[in-house]
């Protein structure tokens, strides 16, 4: 009834090509943005920021990055954790070497450095595909973690091998370090997340994204119609690693503040982000958000319900949490193999016909 194209007249090509062609969608999108930017900061507290919203926003960036590589370009990667570590260590080195430059730029430069590293590890993708490529990126994961553990220069020769984010400010408000306010760190991450999402969305709608998808669907056919596989695959690796690097940098500098590479950026992180995009939906920006929300918020929610509300022992709740999340993943994959994004698409199709489906 209210969710349809009819009556929403587009008079220019720009209008015709916009991200949300349906009026209701567009307004919903503005409403979400307005709520996130204008309402949440006034109500956010430390728990909401550090336990739920920051991890959600940061994982969403990582999921967008990985989705570009796996979902749009079809190159399976298990190196996400390692690339996040590159972003984190690049930020740390930049923060400590150039304390006068703002953290905002450090994080973007760290993304750029990760992009270069990503391209390096993406080179084998020109020769190998599928599972074999997954193994090659797995090597990147282990190599990078080993490197950051092994070479003391990366952690400034600190005795513990940990990296700690010193305090940095933006417009006079601390955004890293213990004195940071929850609303400031939240907004800082939100800007990066929204920026990444808009950038990724528009990249995937344009020439570059279409080339990626052509490579994903059938690389030989794509090559025959004039898509350069070298350029397409390497840009996918570069853009993907850029986002993943930014996520790693925020994860270290803003969210955790102190990081130990083996624990925080280990192979588990790679799997977690991969699960996010599989559950959320491959090849969908909304899916990246949905997957990140599912795997970040659900465990916290379960914990609070089982322990906080029902008063169960913590260990029982922790084990149940694993079982419930695992079960839901399996159920989702069987019931909807294309992820939460597909559910959303189906809902939208139904909505267009509602309330007269025949």
């Amino acid at each position, binding site marked *: 009834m209210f969710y349809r194209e009819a009556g929403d007249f587009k008079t220019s090509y720009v209008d015709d090509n916009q991200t949300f062609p349906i009026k209701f969608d567009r307004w919903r999108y503005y409403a979400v943005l307005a709520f996130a930017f204008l309402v949440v900061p006034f109500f956010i507290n*430390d*728990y909401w920021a550090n*336990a739920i919203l920051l991890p959600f926003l940061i994982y969403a960036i990582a999921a967008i990055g990985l989705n570009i590589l796996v979902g749009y370009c079809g190159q399976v990667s298990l190196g996400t954790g390692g690339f996040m570590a590159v972003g984190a260590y690049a930020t740390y080195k930049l923060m400590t070497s150039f304390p006068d430059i703002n953290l905002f730029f450090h994080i973007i430069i760290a993304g750029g450095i990760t992009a270069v590293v990503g391209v390096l590890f993406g080179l084998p993708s020109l020769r190998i595909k599928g599972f074999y490529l997954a193994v090659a990126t797995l090597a990147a994961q282990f190599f990078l973690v080993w490197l950051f553990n092994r070479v003391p220069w990366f952690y400034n020769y600190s005795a513990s091998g940990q990296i700690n984010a*010193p305090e940095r400010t933006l417009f006079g408000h601390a955004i890293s370090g*213990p004195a940071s306010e929850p609303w400031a760190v939240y907004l800082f991450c939100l800007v990066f997340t929204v920026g990444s999402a808009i950038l990724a969305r528009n990249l995937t709608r344009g020439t570059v994204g279409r080339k990626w998808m052509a490579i994903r669907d059938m690389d030989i056919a794509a090559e025959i119609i004039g898509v350069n596989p070298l350029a397409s695959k390497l840009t996918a690796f570069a853009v993907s690693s850029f986002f993943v690097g930014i996520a790693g940098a925020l994860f270290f500098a803003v969210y955790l503040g102190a990081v130990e590479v083996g*624990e*925080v950026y280990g192979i588990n992180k790679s799997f977690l982000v991969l699960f996010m995009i599989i559950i959320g939906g491959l090849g969908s920006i909304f899916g990246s958000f949905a997957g990140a929300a599912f795997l970040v918020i659900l465990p916290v929610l379960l914990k*609070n319900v089982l322990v906080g509300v029902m008063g169960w022992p913590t*260990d029982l709740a922790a084990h149940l949490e694993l079982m419930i999340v695992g079960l839901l993943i399996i159920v989702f994959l069987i019931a909807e193999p294309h992820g939460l994004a597909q559910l959303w698409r189906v809902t939208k199709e139904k909505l267009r016909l509602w309330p007269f489906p025949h």
Partner: protein
Amino acid sequence: MKIKTLITAAAAAMMAAAPALADLYIPSLTYRSGPYAANGIPTADGYADYFTLLNERDGGIGGAKVVFEECETGYNTEKGVECYEAVKSKNPLTIHPWSTGITYQLIPKATADGIPIHSVGYGRTSAKNGEVFRWIFNYPANYWDGASHAISHILDQEGGDLNGKKVALVYHNSAFGKEPIRTLEELGKIHGYELTLLPVDHPGQEQKSQWLQIRRERPDYVIMWGWGVMNQVAVQEAVNIRFPMDHFIGIWWSGSENDVRPAGEGANGYKALTFNGLEKDYPIFDDLKKYVHDAGKGAGAGDQVGTVLYMRGLYSALMTAEAIKKAQEIHGTPDVTPAMVRDGYENLDITAATYEALGLPGFGPEIKGSCQNHGGQGLGAVSQWNAAEDRFVMITDYIESNQDVIQPLIDADSKAYAEENGITPGCE
């Protein structure tokens, strides 16, 4: 949106459950699940049971009831942060993070929020310098003390001369495992031994190559900084290559029954450091049985009582309770705040008589804190596994660590931290 309403409901329920002001709220960040659960469970049980005992037997501490709550971290930093934020709003008197990684995470946060952190024999060693780390305590001993204890014991065994000897350090490749390296290197310069470093990656099930290297290089002694499943694997590997077990010394976190039992008879003679007593007949066990376990109020399954790590959890709770008592004494009120407990910790004074009075004669070393010293006197002992009796037995008295080496290292490290974070060292 439905999810959000649910979370809000859950969060609201948690806020509602927050204790009234007159209670002493003490959270415990436990890990009863995950790869380190075998060690996390007894520690958490001991910690919880002691507070239950105080509540049931004495009606709390100084007349105020202890409200105890656990939060599961699974030894995972992100969950640790979540737990910290969850308990923070409820005004915790002190937090024991039970993980070196999480301790590093919480040091700046807790300092900013004014919550005392007590890392019992783990965490950041230089936190001993209270002038820099005002809210952080690491009684009764730290990792650098431990490294020194191990070397002292080796010196005793070798008749005081280690020139040309080879010592290998098998360590968990993390902040925890890397702690002793500096001290061992410094001590190596003094005593003339050669140090080999053998890192083991989390979680530590894969150690074949490290022990192959040990078999090839034949070090005279192996020191281990391990935790969780890594310990069991290391002990088993040492048995497999027939390494003399009495030349194999673990840190206090590598010396529990769980670590040696799987290796059976072969593990007999394995040594580990300890900073708490391991006797089986402390009078407190009667009270624990009467007030806690027989009353059905024990934490966990109740099968861990008396194990090494259970006693360590108990010991941690004991120090916390003493700090709270001290705080009540100093400020003249049973209703203490985190800031008062910090004062209590700083003036912590545990003597042989205290242990005696608590039903734990000779349980631990004497501890005397001050504003400068947040880490105690750094005493530790060596225990040895007796497979026939199925228990660890203390084979030395509490020995002192080489403060001439350690104190300058602590000063240097804490000074660097102070400079990095813009802290002016001093006692207020």
